[in-house]
């Protein structure tokens, strides 16, 4: 695999995403967040900081999810549908480089998006702390501009990285609509995956429990990557926990991208 080729494809994905009005979504998000934060700081007493932190992180997850799914699915299917892939694959690139380049390009887009959202988020937290800090600071569980929030943001990024890999995987062989539905479905299932692990405590049937256990290992386990509540409530999140979950995400993504490459490499573009 040639690094230069992968980089060129990734940069082109980023350029496409930026020109696809994703940035306008971001501006909208930032403005919305600021407005809502201001309103909430007017309505709540003492809990304002916690609510703003929760809301901001949830908004980052949600907007990130939309970007990951909708752009992630378009990455491959649009190229195939509009046939721009014909001239591209005639260039000295392998299909593997195409898939990996597309994936990394969207990760770059997500990273930049999340970084801008995080800056807006910290700016709002700083502004609220500066305006209301003297009154409410004693009630806060954690400082307003808390660096620990970055842990939650990093975990959101990992979740989205898995979602992009799922979207990419489905878009290599199914229609965009089906791929979007399946990706959203897996995102939701991924947050309740832990229930499958101990399914034998709920059902008596051994085969059912066995199938549930297999599904537990096959489906993405996204709930452990959600540490929003912990950081907002100043519950410590150990570095080893983050590292282990990062390793899980990397392995899961590698398997998905490899599977996507395997399918894509054998596909006919009729």
């Amino acid at each position, binding site marked *: 695999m040639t690094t230069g080729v992968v980089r060129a494809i990734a940069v082109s994905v980023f*350029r496409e995403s930026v020109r696809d009005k994703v940035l306008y979504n971001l501006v909208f998000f930032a403005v919305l967040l600021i407005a809502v934060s201001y309103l909430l700081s007017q309505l709540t007493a003492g809990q304002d900081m916690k609510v703003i932190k929760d809301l901001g992180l949830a908004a980052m997850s949600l907007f990130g999810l939309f970007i990951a799914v909708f752009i992630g699915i378009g990455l491959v299917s649009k190229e195939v549908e*509009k*046939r*721009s892939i014909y*001239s591209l694959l*005639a260039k*000295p690139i*392998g299909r593997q480089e195409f898939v990996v380049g597309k994936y990394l390009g969207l990760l770059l887009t997500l990273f930049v998006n999340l970084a801008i959202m995080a800056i807006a988020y910290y700016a709002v937290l700083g502004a609220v702390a500066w305006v209301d800090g003297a009154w409410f600071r004693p009630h806060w569980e954690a400082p307003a501009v808390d660096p620990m929030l970055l842990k939650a943001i990093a975990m959101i990024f990992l979740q989205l990285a898995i979602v992009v890999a799922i979207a990419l995987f489905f878009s290599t062989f199914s229609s965009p609509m089906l791929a979007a539905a399946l990706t959203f479905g897996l995102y939701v299932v991924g947050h309740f995956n832990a229930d499958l692990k101990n399914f034998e405590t709920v059902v008596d049937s051994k085969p059912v429990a066995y199938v549930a256990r297999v599904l537990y290992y096959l489906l993405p386990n996204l709930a452990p990557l959600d540490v929003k509540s912990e950081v907002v409530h100043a519950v410590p999140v150990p570095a080893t926990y983050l590292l282990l979950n990062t390793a899980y995400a990397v392995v899961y993504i590698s398997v998905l991208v490899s599977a996507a490459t395997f399918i894509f490499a054998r596909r006919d573009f009729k």
Partner: protein
Amino acid sequence: MYAIRTEALTKDFSIGFWRPRAYRALHGLNLEVNPGETFGFLGPNGAGKTTTLKLLMQLIYPTSGHAEILDRPVGDVSVKRRIGYLPESPYFYDYLTAEELLDYYATLFGYDSVERRRRVSALLDQVGIAGERRLPLRKFSKGMIQRVGIAQALINDPEVVFFDEPMSGLDPLGRREVRNLILSLRDRGCTVFFSSHVLSDAEALCNRVAVLAHGKLVASGRISDLQAFDIRGWELIVSGLTPESLERHRARAQRVTLLGEQRYSLELPLAPGPEQLLRDLTGSGAQVVSLNPIRETLEDFFVKTIAEQASERWSGTGESRKQS
């Protein structure tokens, strides 16, 4: 060494969702194209031309058979460095300008920024869209997109170029420019393989042609050598014919058309040859405006071949019955 070689190249597509059945789009194609040749790949719509080109670009995989470009298997990255490809009715990224698109493709070949800029500028000039280099591609007309498509196929100064219907979407001026471009590629030793359903394009440009119908190779060779395109008569345009001379030729002609004052078009049989005709005419004081051979057109050839294949199918004796 062959620039392009295919051996029993066959492609089946699966049709139908619930009860899929195989549809054979290409039947055991054998083709050999020499380096430096301009090769016309002719056939009506649905003949299998694009399928063949996609197989050569490895956009689809063959059901059986084998294809090589420059003595290497198709799809080999080292081969892709040495070829260019213009797809049929190409589409490129809306959000890019022509300059950005060519620069992106040049990056994939590993050229540095100075080299990329040089190649992009030269090609934009060559295909006549230098003035629109910074315009987003979504604002381009079909003909302009076709020109961008030709430019991107030449970004690496390829040894072998594949053009799928290169004249499609172009106005007469554009067609002439593409013809000149193909001739200039030929002059500098580039192998050009292009598909078309227009015989005159092939006649003007090609060393050899292959004719495809219903996924089967039905003829190949030099156009002048192909029995299918033999001369079947002469079209003579003359003025100043005397009434006696007109009557003498009218008796022989298959068709006589008055074009203008004292100007006639005569469709004459193959024999006697043009030398005899010219002697007769100049002897009687007529002026010869033009004398052209009448060949069977590609369209006539297709219609005849398709009719033959259909009758083979219905009679149940043809090979096509077994394959369908």
